[in-house]
């Protein structure tokens, strides 16, 4: 009843092409942002910030980046962890080597390092595609694993490759408390999500989607595959690199190369698949799902199995987690290839017609 667009007439092309054409959506998003920025910081505890909210916000940012490459441009990447690592260590080097370097420029420079790295390892995409490319991006992953472990220059000559940052501040405000970390990441996420949304609905986004749907046909109608693919790699790895820098700087504080292993690449791909390939909101759903599921399992699985008299160890929980992830991925691919975001939009579609189905 409430979710109806009757009477909301558009009189210009511009009004018709807004991000949120329906007034209720705009109100809902404004409310959501207000809750995220104002209510959540007042209610959430330190534990919830550190265990759920901050990882969720940063992973949503990374998933957004991966979605641009995988969901919008159709280039499967198993090397997202590498782009995160390059972003993190790039930002670290700028942060440490230039005294007085503010945080935000360091993050952006880290993102630019990741962009460069992404374009470099995106070059094979011009010659190979699909499955071959997925394997090619693994090269980026293993190369970065090795690079940050063995080349001491990148880690400022630390022995184990582990580094740390402290005294983070933005415009003179310290980023130390969980609340301030959360707000900082959230603000960045909102800005980047808005930029990304505008990018994918513009000319360049349509080029990416054309390449994804059929690259040969796209080339025939005059889309330059090289430009489209490399720009997708560049934008995606910039966002993923920034997320990596945030993950390292804000969430971890001190980290080592293993923090960005191939495991995190897979996780990011799962977020995109479960959340929804080729949709901006998909990254948020996927990240929420993948961040929250292990915590929920850890809390409830032992208790639940205890009802049947089965003891579940910590290892058992992590195995169960693997199985549930695996089963869910297959299930989503079979039943709903567009993920949670599609379910959400179907629900909205139904609401528009409710209570009359036709």
């Amino acid at each position: 009843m409430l979710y109806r667009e009757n009477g909301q007439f558009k009189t210009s092309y511009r009004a018709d092409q807004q991000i949120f054409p329906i007034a209720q959506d705009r109100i809902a998003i404004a409310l959501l942002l207000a809750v995220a920025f104002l209510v959540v910081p007042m209610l959430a505890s330190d534990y919830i910030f550190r265990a759920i909210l901050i990882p969720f916000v940063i992973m949503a940012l990374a998933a957004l980046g991966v979605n641009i490459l995988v969901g919008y441009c159709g280039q499967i990447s198993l090397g997202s962890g590498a782009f995160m690592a390059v972003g993190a260590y790039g930002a670290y080097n700028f942060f440490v080597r230039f005294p007085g370097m503010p945080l935000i420029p360091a993050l952006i420079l880290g993102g630019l390092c990741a962009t460069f790295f992404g374009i470099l390892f995106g070059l094979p995409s011009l010659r190979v595609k699909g499955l071959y490319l997925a394997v090619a991006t693994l090269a980026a992953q293993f190369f970065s694993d090795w690079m940050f472990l063995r080349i001491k220059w990148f880690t400022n000559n630390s022995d184990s490759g582990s580094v740390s940052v402290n005294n983070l501040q933005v415009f003179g405000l310290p980023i130390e408390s969980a609340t301030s970390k959360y707000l900082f990441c959230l603000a960045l996420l909102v800005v980047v999500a808005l930029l990304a949304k505008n990018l994918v609905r513009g000319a360049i986004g349509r080029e990416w989607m054309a390449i994804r749907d059929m690259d040969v046909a796209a080339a025939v109608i005059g889309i330059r595959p090289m430009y489209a693919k490399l720009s997708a790699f560049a934008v995606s790895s910039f966002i993923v690199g920034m997320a990596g820098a945030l993950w390292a700087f804000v969430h971890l504080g001190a980290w080592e190369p293993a923090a960005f292993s191939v495991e995190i690449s897979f996780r990011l791909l799962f977020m995109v698949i479960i959340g929804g390939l080729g949709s901006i909101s998909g990254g948020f759903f996927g990240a929420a799902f993948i961040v929250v599921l292990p915590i929920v399992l850890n809390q409830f699985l032992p208790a639940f199995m205890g009802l049947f008299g089965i003891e579940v160890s910590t290892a058992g929980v992590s195995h169960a987690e693997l199985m549930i992830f695996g089963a869910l991925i297959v299930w989503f691919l079979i039943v709903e290839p567009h993920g949670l975001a599609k379910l959400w939009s179907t629900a909205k579609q139904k609401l528009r017609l409710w209570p009359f189905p036709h």
Partner: protein
Amino acid sequence: MAFFLETLIGGLMAGMLYSLVALGFVLIYKASGVFNFAQGAMVLFAALAMARFAEWIPKWTGISSPIVANLAAFVIAGAIMFVVAWLIEKLVLRHLVNQEGATLLMATLGITYFMEGLGQTLFGSDIYKIDVGMPKDPIFMLDSLFQGGILVNKEDVIAAAIAAALVALLSVFFQKTSTGRALRAVADDHQAAQSIGIPLNRIWVIVWCVAGVVALVAGMIWGSKLGVQFSLTTVALRALPVVILGGLTSVPGAIIGGLIIGVGEKLSEVYLGPFVGGGIEIWFAYVLALVFLLFRPQGLFGEKIIDRV
């Protein structure tokens, strides 16, 4: 010179084992167009089953002969792989017919996770050992030619021989039997094969079974070398550049690609590694495959893909 030859032979032996894992990838890709990322998980699963049953059977039945126990464990693990293949076809692949390669790849990623979790839930996640009685002592060759001779691991030689035998068997199976012909027909064109009455579903089950058995053999050999543990799945990650280099659709490609990667890895580690800090084996293989792809995107023996709009 002796040292170089030793490295070379070591590389060839390691390469033979990579080819064994790569073979699993190629078989499935050839017959169903699925890039089976789960091959590593299958190797782990099969090896875990084999290791545990070899341990359990003497306990349950009181058979003390290790040969009988290992043989029984091998048969049981093989049977389990058949069941796994059947389930994968029934639950996953059947529902994803005619989907894009990328979707199928991601589905096998899901299978990977599921099997890793399930394998460790069923069989435990400690380090187990498979002892099929392979001799571990090294042998010396060409004593007369070089000072001190060349050191070769006997275990490696046997493993390579098993791998070679398996490959020969598979080539005969593919070339001479009617099932093999049907498999090749399906690989060429799903629809055409189906229209002349080749049952697609059954073919897929067969292919995944064969890949399961190959995974079992690979798991057995790797397991007796390194012990059966979670890190066995990374063997598959090391076999990926082999498949890429050799071409996804070619059995000989998997073998020769494996040898090239094995040798390349060892030589680069020994002769190039010290200059850049060592540990370059794993990415060197990938970069080697990658550079090769830039010149020949379909791999060494792959079929040229022609795109049509």
